[in-house]
């Protein structure tokens, strides 16, 4: 599946819920499926600044594709980052960097998160794209 297709499937899933409390319940579930980061990466280096809850993100590069693992001390944050990983992980660096991320607005995530949270979301995406770019350069 392309990033676009994966994003569409996220949008489809979220469209099933009318009530945002149900969406949050679903996000909380998703958080539990997050590809957990290796404990050894849960350090300052892997911390994303700009989120009020702590988020650790790790990226690896194999067969020209970037994969992400992550963790957070807040469950809803975990759910959000698991969405991002589901859509962006396992993709070519160039696709990650240029990805259309309008699905975030479409599922209403951005509008429903606090400003600090929304900034955290922006920080997460920035960091993922930074990793993709760096790994791409390093390996080419």
């Amino acid at each position, binding site marked *: 599946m392309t990033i676009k297709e994966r994003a569409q499937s996220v949008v489809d899933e979220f469209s099933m819920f009318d009530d945002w409390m149900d969406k949050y319940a679903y996000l909380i579930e998703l958080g539990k499926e997050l590809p957990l980061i290796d404990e050894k990466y849960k350090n300052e280096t892997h911390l994303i600044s700009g989120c009020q809850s702590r988020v650790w993100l790790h990226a690896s590069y194999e067969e020209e594709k970037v994969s992400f693992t992550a963790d957070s001390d807040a469950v*809803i944050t975990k759910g959000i980052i698991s969405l991002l990983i589901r859509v962006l992980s396992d993709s070519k660096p160039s696709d990650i960097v240029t990805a259309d991320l309008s699905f975030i607005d479409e599922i209403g995530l951005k509008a429903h*998160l606090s400003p600090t949270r929304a900034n955290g979301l922006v920080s997460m995406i920035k960091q993922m794209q930074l990793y993709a770019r760096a790994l791409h350069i390093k390996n080419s």
Partner: protein
Amino acid sequence: MALNIDNIRSDFPILSKEVYNKPLIYFDNGATTQKPLQVINRISEYYLNENSNVHRGAHYLSQIATDHFENARKYVAGFINAKSHREVIFTKGTTESINLVASSIKGLIEKDDEIIITAMEHHSNMVPWQQLCINKNAKLRNLSVAGDGSISLSELKDLIGPSTKLIAIAHISNVLGTINPVKEIIEIAHNNGIPVLIDGAQAIAHVNVDVQDLDCDFYAFSAHKAYGPMGIGVLYGKESWLNKLAPYQYGGEMINTVSFNITTFNELPYKFEAGTPDVAGALGMESALRYIDNLGIDNIRSYEDELLEYATNSISKLVGVRVIGTALEKTAVLSFVVDNIHPFDIGTLMNQLGIALRSGNHCAQPLMEHLKITGTLRASFALYNTKDEVDIFVSALEKAINMLS
């Protein structure tokens, strides 16, 4: 006298708002309070009928605006029982008031001098002193906070020494709700010849503030946390202290005469007010303080105490909820954590349920470290909040905890 909360709420139209189809419950008053129509209308009225620059004018509107502006200053002086309106400096808010003192007192602080703060200070009453100390090679000393959120006067006495040049402390903690024994602290300080600055940001709308009774040397607060507009606040300072301090910024009314080489400065309070002041803001602040006065600060205090007690009892019944800040002397602020759940997760769900709380470190990172927590949830009350709102809040909290457990 009991407050008529229905009447009061009708003065605050924003309280009838819905958020995500839920009635808004505004429990973020520690961050900023809502404004009554009296304040909003006063500001409009000013711009519709009286707007002009002040002091230097030679015309009718300018005189009206100046009179009203200076009357607002006098009203503020009366509200905090200052000896003179010359002791009331208009600033942008608490943060600027404290920074003003930190900047203008610089010349009086020397290497190895000491400034005492507490571990519960808001960044605004901590970082200005920290940076001043770094700048002057002086020492910042830290009065610790006990598990219940109180401080110890005997520890303070131990901290005070011949090098102590200033004590800066919150009247009421924005995280813990603790009402500090500032009168006793000031007495101890004065016995040692040390001036005291009180950060009154969380106090001005909640308890009676009498600067002469306290005998504090400086008292700082913001209008926006006391039903007044944003962008304006006050630095109260004893006249003798204000005269000792260097001017703060330069330009406008604070200047007496200027030539190319030398400038002489105006008398108090103008010495500390550079540039065109926020006249509308001052009038809005006056209206807000009048609003408080009309209801009576003591009535407000007892109503809010009752609300706090009710809320504290109610959330304490929920499994896993732990109240942070349980000092005997406490008001208006209810901080708590829930075992194994991040404050942000709860805050997010509470918001979705229409309840405006604050979560995080509340601009008091050193306190969080001190208490070994990463953050709290905070419900902070104002005179328009009700027990019904507390009930809704508590059942929402229960729901959120269930979802997150």
